[in-house]
C-alpha cells in the first residue's frame, strides 16, 4: 500500500509550520486556478510553482517524492496518451522524433498538467499537515466537532482494518485454505474475508461508540482540544501572494498567442 510514501513528515520546514487551514485553502485555490487556465504554458508555470513549494518551501525528501511518483504520474500519463491518440487533429507536429497530431498533443498535455498539479498540491498538504491539526482547524471555522471526529476516526481505524484483514487471512490459513486455488474459489474467499472484516469492524464500532459516549463525548455543543488552532501570519501571506500570482497568471495568459 502507498501509505509509506504518503504520510505526514514533521521536518519543521517553512510550509510545515503554516497552519493547516491556510494550506487546505491553498490547495483549493491551486485546483480552482488550474481549472481556469487555458494555455499549457501557464499550466507549466503553475506546475513549476507547485514543485518549488514542494522542494524548497516544504522540503519534502526526494526519496519520498520518488516513491510517490507512480501515483502522481500514472493517471496524468494515461490521460495524455488517450487524448493524444483519440483527439481529432488537423496538423501534424514532430515531438522527440515522433509525428503526432498537434491538437491531440495539446489536449493530452492539458489533462496531464491539470491532473499532475492537482495531485501534487494534494500530496504536499498530506506531507506537511498533521491530520489532527486539520480537523481542529475545520472545527474552529464551524464544522461540528462530531463530524470532524468521524473523519479522524476513519483514519484511526485504517491500521485496525489492516490488522483485521491479516487476522482473518491467518484464521483461514490455519483451517487449511489452499495456497493456490482457482479464481472462483479465491473470489469466494474474498467474499468471506470482506464479510468477516465488516462484521468485526462493526462490533468494534459499537464498543468504541459505547466507550466514547461513557466519557461524555457529544454531551456539549463545543469541545476543547489539546492543541488549539491559530491562523499563522505566514499562512495568510502565502494565500495573499498566491491569489496575486493566480490573478497575474490568468491575465498574463490572455495576452499570449494560442499555445
Amino acid at each position, binding site marked *: 500500500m*502507498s501509505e509509506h510514501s504518503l504520510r505526514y513528515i514533521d521536518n519543521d520546514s517553512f510550509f510545515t509550520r503554516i497552519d493547516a487551514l491556510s494550506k487546505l485553502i491553498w490547495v483549493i485555490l491551486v485546483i480552482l486556478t488550474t481549472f481556469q487556465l487555458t494555455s499549457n504554458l501557464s499550466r507549466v508555470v503553475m506546475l513549476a510553482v507547485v514543485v518549488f513549494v514542494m522542494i524548497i518551501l516544504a522540503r519534502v525528501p526526494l526519496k519520498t517524492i520518488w516513491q510517490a511518483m507512480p501515483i502522481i504520474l500514472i493517471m496524468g500519463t494515461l490521460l495524455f496518451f488517450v487524448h493524444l491518440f483519440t483527439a481529432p487533429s488537423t496538423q501534424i507536429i514532430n515531438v522527440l522524433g515522433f509525428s503526432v497530431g498537434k491538437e491531440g498533443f495539446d489536449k493530452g498535455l492539458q489533462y496531464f498538467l491539470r491532473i499532475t498539479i492537482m495531485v501534487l498540491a494534494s500530496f504536499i498538504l498530506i506531507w506537511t499537515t498533521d*491530520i489532527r491539526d486539520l480537523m481542529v482547524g475545520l472545527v474552529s471555522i464551524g464544522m461540528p466537532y462530531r463530524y470532524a471526529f*468521524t473523519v479522524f476516526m476513519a483514519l484511526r481505524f485504517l491500521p485496525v482494518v489492516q490488522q483485521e484483514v491479516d487476522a482473518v487471512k491467518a484464521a483461514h490459513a490455519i483451517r487449511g485454505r489452499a495456497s493456490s486455488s482457482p479464481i472462483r474459489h479465491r473470489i469466494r474467499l474474498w467474499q468471506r474475508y470482506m464479510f468477516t472484516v465488516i462484521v468485526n469492524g462493526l*462490533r468494534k464500532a*459499537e464498543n468504541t461508540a459505547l466507550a466514547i459516549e461513557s466519557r461524555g463525548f457529544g454531551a456539549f455543543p463545543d469541545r476543547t482540544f489539546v492543541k488549539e488552532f491559530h491562523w499563522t501570519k505566514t499562512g495568510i501571506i502565502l494565500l495573499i501572494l498566491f491569489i496575486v500570482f493566480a490573478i497575474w497568471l490568468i491575465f498574463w495568459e490572455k495576452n499570449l498567442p494560442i499555445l
Partner: protein
Amino acid sequence: MSTPVILVINIVILVVLGLVVKTVKSDPTAKGGFNFNYTTSDLVIMAVLGALAGVINTWMGNVWYAANTVSPIYGAALQGTFMWAYILAYFLVRKSGSMLIIGIIEASVEALLGNQAGLSTLGWGISQGIGAEVVMAFCMYTKFGWLALGLAGAGASQFGTVWSFILYGWTSLTDYLIAAPINLISGFIFSGLLGYFLGTMIAKTGLLRATRRGAE
C-alpha cells in the same frame, strides 16, 4: 459536450429514478423525513465503513482509472463498485445525509491513502453521495428494500460521472449516453444490491443495537 448539458442529463436521470422509488412500497417501521440527529454510534459505524471502503476503493480505483480514461463506456461497468458502503451505511443508520457523509469520509480516506486523483477524489464522494441522497429524498427516506436501495446505488453511480466528466474531459456525448445505462446497472447491482445484501446479512448476525435493523 459541456458541464451544464451533463448536469441536466444527470438531473433528469435522478428525477426519473426518484419517481420510480416513490412507487416502491414503504417500510412500515420507517419514521422517514429529514433526520440529521446522528448518534455517536451512527458516526462511528460510518467511520468504520468509510475506512473499509476507502481501502478497497483505492485498490479498485487503479483499475477503474485505467478503464475510464479511454472512454466512459469502459469505466461504466466498474463505476458501480464504489458505493456499496454508502448503501450499507444508509441501511444500518437509516438517516438522511448518511450516504453523503460516508461519501466524504470514504473519499477523504482514499485521498490520504494515495488515490491517483489526490484531493479531487472528494468530488466523487460528494457527487455520488448527492446522487444517492436525491433518489432517497424522493421517498422521504422511508424505503429500505432491495429495489429502493438498488435505485439509490444506480443514482449514485450515474451522478458520479458528472465529476468524472469534469476531470477527464470526455468529448463524445454518444459515448456518454451509451455509458449511462451501463453505469445505472452497475450501480444498481454492485452498490445497491450488494449494500442491501450485506446489510441483511449483518442484521441476521444480531450484531446491531436495538435501534437498528438487527433487533427487528
